[in-house]
């Protein structure tokens, strides 16, 4: 039967407004582009909405949504539903501090991430975008902590190789981090 009472919708809407963008940022790193990220988060939100009335007080909806996003992305990947088309080689690019250059850098990083094996990419995103400890990542991905460590290590090296001379960039360190201190 219909569960979307006004109160439920209000609380759910407030949750999405407060936390949605942060999950969108994680999703774009998983998928490689904003359109796919939007699709992924929206599909996950629909699943969260359906489960919302049954979430007990001990369930953190933020963590629950993260789990849905990760699992949904995995199922899409298995279904070969992938819009990202990693380039064989990344273009040379010089960066400054203006907005356009930051966007170009962002696109380059997303492209490099998209070229990694799915599990390495997921580990990197959960470890360094979501700041989850290795044990939590292992639980989310259904693997051992040792496997997370291995994937993380290999992923970092691979990302570094793919970014070549763009890594590390001193100016990147000065980039504002929109995720810290949110939701």
């Amino acid at each position, binding site marked *: *039967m*219909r569960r979307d009472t006004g109160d439920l919708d209000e609380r759910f*809407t407030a949750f*999405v*407004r407060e936390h*949605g*963008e942060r999950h*969108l*940022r*994680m999703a*774009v*790193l998983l998928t490689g582009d*904003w359109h796919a990220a*939007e699709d992924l988060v*929206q*599909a996950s*939100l*629909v*699943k969260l*909405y*359906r*489960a919302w009335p*049954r*979430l007990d007080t001990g369930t953190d909806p933020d963590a*629950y949504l993260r*789990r*849905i996003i990760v*699992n*949904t992305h995995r*199922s*899409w990947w298995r*279904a070969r*539903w992938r819009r990202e088309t990693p380039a064989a080689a990344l273009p040379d690019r010089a960066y400054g501090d203006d907005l356009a250059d*930051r*966007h170009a*850098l*962002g696109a380059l*990083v997303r492209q490099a*991430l998209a070229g990694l094996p799915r599990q390495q990419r997921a580990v*990197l*995103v959960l*470890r*360094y*975008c979501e700041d989850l400890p290795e044990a939590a990542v292992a639980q989310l991905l259904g693997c051992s902590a040792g496997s997370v460590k291995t994937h993380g*290590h290999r992923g*970092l*090296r691979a*990302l*570094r190789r793919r*970014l070549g001379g763009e*890594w*590390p960039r001193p100016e*990147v*360190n000065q*980039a*504002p*981090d*929109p*995720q*810290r201190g949110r939701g």
Partner: protein
Amino acid sequence: MKEEENDMPDAEQQVRALFAAASADVSPDIDLLRGMQARRVAHRFRLRVTLSAAAAAVVAAAVVITTALAQAPSALAQLTSAVSRTAAQSYHFTATTTSVTLSGTGTPVTTRTDLSGAFDPVRRLGEETTSTGEQTRFIGSYVYLNGHLTLPDGKSWLRAPSPTLWAPVTANRQLRLTAGLLSVAETSPQNLLALLESASQVNRQGSVSGPGWTGTRYAFSVTLAIGPAGSGQPTVHASGTIDVDQLGRVRRLDAAYTLPAMGSAPPEQATAEMTFSDFGAPVSVSAPPASDVLAPGSAPAVPGPAPSMSGSAPG
């Protein structure tokens, strides 16, 4: 290698900064809540059409699979005739569909949808209303939706084209219709008839009766591939019954089945039950006032349906 490992703490800080840069340029066009609403609507329709499509498809598949049964030719003939009769006149219907998701991400989610409405396949008119008040009207090749979506101020109906709604379909095509503005009308008797054209047998189970009618129950049990033969696509396992009254019209249909995971949709255990009544009774469906209708892609004015498609349909 050693050098890389020694650099790892720095690398972790660098990758955090890189990820922040790579996720900072969120497009202002992205509206998660609005897009989610659209997906909820699509899911409900997808669920209904998948449930009803599977129910319809199993009828055809059952007769194919049970070809060897001795009693089957007469059962098939009666069922084909019943569907043909039902498809040739207007009818009212009720439908209840339930599904339980089998996702591994948490508590199974049970969804139930109750529907009622009426269709006049000859005049291509139809209406269905959920128990929660969402209404869908079918007029010609258009579908009008009310209560499904949040629309701009002053608009309470969304109009969308539905060019395939009345067309006969095949089992495989039915099962691939997993999204879009579709309806329980996809399981209409005329579509059952189209499915039965390629069928050969069903099993007669015994006598049955309902309010004001008596008849015969036919049973089926089937495994049906969703995709083209040999494509390696998953299968639907289903079983159910169809009741045909003494005048040879389909009165009731039920099915229970398991749907495999499809795309982002998790596997589901589902049931569907439909009843048909009031055969030949007038079906009256009219288009909403044009001023209340949002019709994407037809700016600036919002046209109503083609005149020949609107208005009430006499029985």
